[in-house]
């Protein structure tokens, strides 16, 4: 099985410097892309079926094609790499940035060329100190070798790339919250439409793209869309970084063909549950996805199949829950996180999530009431997609609504026994 993104990850935990990266074939994608017209790059990416790896899975090439081009297009145009990896349980972008920072830079140069961006930002999670160090070094190297800056490799293409470290809020990872944060404003989400492709950073056309997505771009250019599609076991092209955390034997991160089944990831790669523990459920792609349970294990982990089962692949990094962990406490922790990370903009989110958190705490403390379960469901309905301003609250509702569905008895036991049975 072919590895693409993690092929050159050094085993010693170091970062691939520019020499080693070039030796491994690095920056060939840039050379090739710069000889292509921007539209050709977009077409190739469209054909590859690459979908955004940040969680929403929007077709990448299509997103780029919305950016105005030509002589009348507003400038500067921006490319923003969303490296604010704050989704609980998610650590895939971190590996890519710590091990192969040039891979990200190369992908970004190709993407920037495709949309004729003048300036690119890497918006990095504030806690990713090591990534920052390594990206900084890599950026300096890339400038030195004229992969960045003016007239890149004599192509006439210019690109400035900056690293920006986040102040640290979950909301900064939301596409438009990120743009506000980058402008120095509160990380509140923005009205859509207009989409960032039309009016984004500083009011100019902007593409925001996840680290893993961008890391794929130059590989697609190098080896073609058909090759990329062939990597996958599903309709969605390419490989995917899958991860598992929780009480499994070998928590970790693996690059596997897109569409590998949940069971294969859980049992073969993560080694199954630790001795003496039973599997109860998992959140497939970070905290803001619905629980999957035993019956879903043979699903393909891709955007389409997981969605059919009522959840989302999200970031593809699963959080596994065992039978010795209290589902109420588990969900309460998550809702505490989401309530705390609400930006405070729209009512169902800032108000509903804090209410949900309080209710879950009281259930966990043995003070819950029968009516609380209906109220929790009610909050999930209030925060449904379209009811809120952005996707944070609907995301927060996903683990809660699915826990109420799959683990309802556990909630009821808390209420009837007036205590947490796991304590």
């Amino acid at each position, binding site marked *: 099985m072919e590895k693409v993104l993690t092929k050159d990850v050094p085993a010693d935990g170091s970062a691939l410097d520019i020499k080693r990266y070039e030796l491994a074939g690095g920056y060939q994608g840039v050379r090739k892309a710069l000889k292509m017209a921007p539209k050709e790059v977009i077409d190739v990416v469209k054909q590859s079926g690459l979908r955004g790896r940040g969680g929403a899975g929007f077709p990448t090439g299509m997103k780029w094609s919305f950016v105005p081009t030509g002589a009348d297009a507003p400038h500067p145009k921006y490319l923003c790499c969303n490296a604010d990896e704050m989704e609980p349980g998610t650590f895939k972008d971190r590996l890519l940035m710590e091990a192969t920072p040039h891979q990200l830079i190369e992908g970004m140069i190709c993407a920037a060329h495709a949309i004729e961006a003048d300036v690119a930002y890497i918006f990095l999670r504030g806690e990713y100190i090591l990534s920052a160090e390594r990206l900084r070094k890599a950026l300096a190297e890339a400038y030195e070798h004229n992969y960045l800056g003016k007239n890149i490799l004599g192509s006439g293409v210019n690109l400035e790339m900056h690293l920006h470290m986040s102040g640290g*809020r979950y*909301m900064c990872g939301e596409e438009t919250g990120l743009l506000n944060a980058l402008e120095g404003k*509160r990380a509140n989400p*923005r*009205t859509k*439409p*207009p989409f960032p492709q*039309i*009016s984004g950073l*500083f*009011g100019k056309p902007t593409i925001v793209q996840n680290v893993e997505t961008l890391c794929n771009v130059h590989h697609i250019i190098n080896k073609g869309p058909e090759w990329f599609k062939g990597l996958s076991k599903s309709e969605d092209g390419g490989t995917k970084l899958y991860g598992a955390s929780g009480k499994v034997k070998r928590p970790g991160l693996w690059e596997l063909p897109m569409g590998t089944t949940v069971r294969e990831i859980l049992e073969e790669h993560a080694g199954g549950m630790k001795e003496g523990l039973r599997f109860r459920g998992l959140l497939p792609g970070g905290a803001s996805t619905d629980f999957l349970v035993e019956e879903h294990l043979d699903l393909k982990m891709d955007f389409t199949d997981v969605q059919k089962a009522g959840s989302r692949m999200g970031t593809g990094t699963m959080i596994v829950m065992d039978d010795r962990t209290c589902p109420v406490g588990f969900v309460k922790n998550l809702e505490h996180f989401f*309530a*705390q*990370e*609400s*930006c*405070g*903009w*729209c*009512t*169902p989110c*800032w*108000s*509903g*999530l*804090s*209410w949900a958190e*309080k209710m879950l705490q*009281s259930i966990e403390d043995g003070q819950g009431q029968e*009516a609380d379960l209906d*109220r929790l469901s*009610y909050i999930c309905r*209030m925060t449904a997609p*379209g*009811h*809120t*301003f952005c996707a944070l609250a609907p995301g927060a509702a996903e683990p809660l609504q699915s826990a109420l569905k799959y683990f309802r008895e556990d909630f009821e036991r808390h209420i009837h026994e007036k205590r947490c049975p796991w304590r």
Partner: protein
Amino acid sequence: MANIWVDDKTYEVSPDQSLLQVCLELGFDLPYFCWHPALGSVGACRQCAVKQFKDENDTKGRIVMSCMTPASDGTRISVKDSDAEAFRAGVIEGLMLSHPHDCPVCDEGGECHLQDMTVMSGHNYRRTPYPKRTFRNQYLGPLLNHEMNRCIQCYRCVRYYREYAGGTDLAPFASRNITYFGRQEDGILESEFAGNLVEICPTGVFTDKTLKQHYTRKWDLQMAPSVCVHCGLGCSTSAGERYGTLRRILNRYNGEVNGYFLCDRGRFGYEFVNSEQRVRETHSRQDGKLKTVPKEKAVEQLGDILKGNSRVIGIGSPRASLESNFALRSLVGVDRFFNGMSEKSSHLVSLMTEILRQGPARSPSLREIEYSDAVLVLGEDVNNTAPRVALSLRQSVRQQPMEKTDKLKIPRWLDHAVREAVQHDTGPLFIATPNATRLDDVSTGTYRAAPDDIARLGFAVAHALDSEAPAVPDLSDDVRRMAERIARALKSAKRPLVVSGSSLASEAVIHAAANVARALAKDSKSAGLSFAMPEANTLGLALLGGGNLNEAFKTVQEGKADTVIILENDLYRRAPAEAVDNLMQAVRHMVVLDQLMTPTASKSEFVLPAGAFAESDGTFVNNEGRAQRFFQAYVPKDDIQESWRWLLDLMKASGHAEAASWNVLDDLVSATAGAVPPLEKITEAAPSSKFRMLNEKVPRSPHRYSGRTAMLANIKVSEPKPPQDPDSALAFSMEGTPTQPPSSLMPFFWSPGWNSIQSVNKFQSEINGALRGGDPGVRLIDPPQTGSGLYFSAPQRPFEVRPDEWLLVPLYHVFGSEELSSQAPAVAQLAPKPYVALSTADAERLQVQEGAQVEVKLAGNSQKLPVVVQAGLPKGIAGIPAGLVSVEGAGLPAWASVTRS
């Protein structure tokens, strides 16, 4: 137009609006919080949810926010849909989780949008037993009270304060359900438009601190439509009274003038009416002292003095109503009536008035100023001389950038999307003033210079626009380039505007502004020319006519008069003390009618207590040329009555034939209109006292006015007969027809279910448009737009710095420079202490630092003042705060010596 379906009924609406706006216009009761007609849509509160259907076959539909959805053709929505109703009730439930439910002790209670919307949404039972979040409140200065626990996080305060009004010291802090709206630390809110937060906040977070001193619920106020007296813009206000004192001023929506907003001087300056400086009783001088006398006795005495006396002159006032000035003029005779302004200001005001009347440029309303797309401000610190203009200009700079966002198909009502696309882009706004101004942050360019140089810039702009306009000799390259840049910006604009005024007392500046406007108008542009007028009725008085104060002095000095009647005018503010003293020495009899015991009044033989705006009826003409009627909110106690009524009493007592048939306001309005052709249309400013709706007068109090039978029960158990009002179609009553009166007679906004000021939408022909039946007031000036007049000639010489003298210019302060509001304690508290401002270079030249005492000598008078160093001031110019440092009536600008003391 677009056809939309609301609950299966079809309506024709404007497609350029959000669904929320069209639903409100159609009369639906759709609750909202974060939306505001002047602020547009941002989709934060989620309160205005409706169900939208794809087509007629879609029965499921989906919840959408009506504020974020365009009213495009074919849209099908349901307001009554049970899912939508349940969602709206749920949003209110969420908003109320931490609201303290302290309505009975909250100042907002009874006019609270949150109360209204809660009732409208049907949420009434609290399902959460958990503790509420609490906050610490801040001290925000003498004007506003802060009670953050009531906050529902709608973000309107910070959107208004920061994005609309340009303030920087109010912000959202923290996040989630503990978002805090306040300052970084306790302190006085910096914006002079902060008071609007009282009306912007949908609940009781920001409330009127001055009202709190003498609190009354909205429903218990007796109110009247009024007009602000604290500058020349004539903003519409609503004055509210209870127990004989003026309790508060609220904005009264006037689509053409102030819209939804007032400045803080206008909102909080009212307390001079309740001031201890008020003259409440009739006074006459006995044994050298002013003593109270019965009103009738004073009138009788004065009647004897005036009877057959041909040696009487009258000095009117630009802060008194047309009717009072006209009554005085009638009493003394046209030739013996003086306008009460100094020679210089009288000249400048007449000049501005003539320019506006001749055209071709038209004086725009505040609304039109807001929609101007390129502006030159020439010599006027509008933030301090005509504050509400500054708020409109702040919006005007968005006009050109918004044309770009139109091309991105971002609807203008989608506020944050527009702001994010516009970023810091601003349309042309050039400001030429001696000192830095609060509008500089949105200006395209500023020019700091002496009055003459400001005028020269203006002349150069006019010349750059039209070579027939006189050129300016010896212009530096920098200034010429700037003039050309300004000319280009104005020329390429669709609705260019020149703003100027008389605050620098410079004829040249006014000439320059007129030239620019004339040059623009020549290009067949709809060019605007707006002059800030110093006082509430300055333009009205200019139209009425009359000699200036110097001529009045001369008349007395020449022995042609020995009796002077002074109407609402403190002469010491307008003329050198010596001249006023001489006048007083020379006359045998002196009568002052005024509201406050001014220095002039305190030296008079007779002082007659004049009604303040809230106690009087009358007409003011604002700087636009709009005549607006104000009405008394209550009948004042003691001897206080309208100045014109006093003057009628005197006319009758002295056997004046003309006055025999004059009894009520209508008589005087008609007489004024008949006698003064430019004022002919003032009869149309408001309906006469004969106006009735369904045979009833318009009530001044809401239907829920309480305590009518009990208020005075501790004095007398029988309910007194309410006062009759012979002067207007308003009644001192809560009884009357509940239909909408004409806009100029609307004492307050209230509609069933809409107890707060948000109810304005029920009275507008369209949201943000005119009130139904037209906005209050009538324009008296409409110049021919194709005048072929001549250009004024340019000043020949540039300003020259003198070695030992400084040109002393007045620097204006929104708080402190205006006479009446300075007597309001909260405003007085915000006024700066006396100072003299010097440029950095001049402070170095004098070897003084900030705070050092210097001696300022002007016209033989000397005073010590602390230095304020203002980096922006040009060299050779010194500034003193207008109205706050006595210059003994010496007209500014004037040359003065400044020395270290």
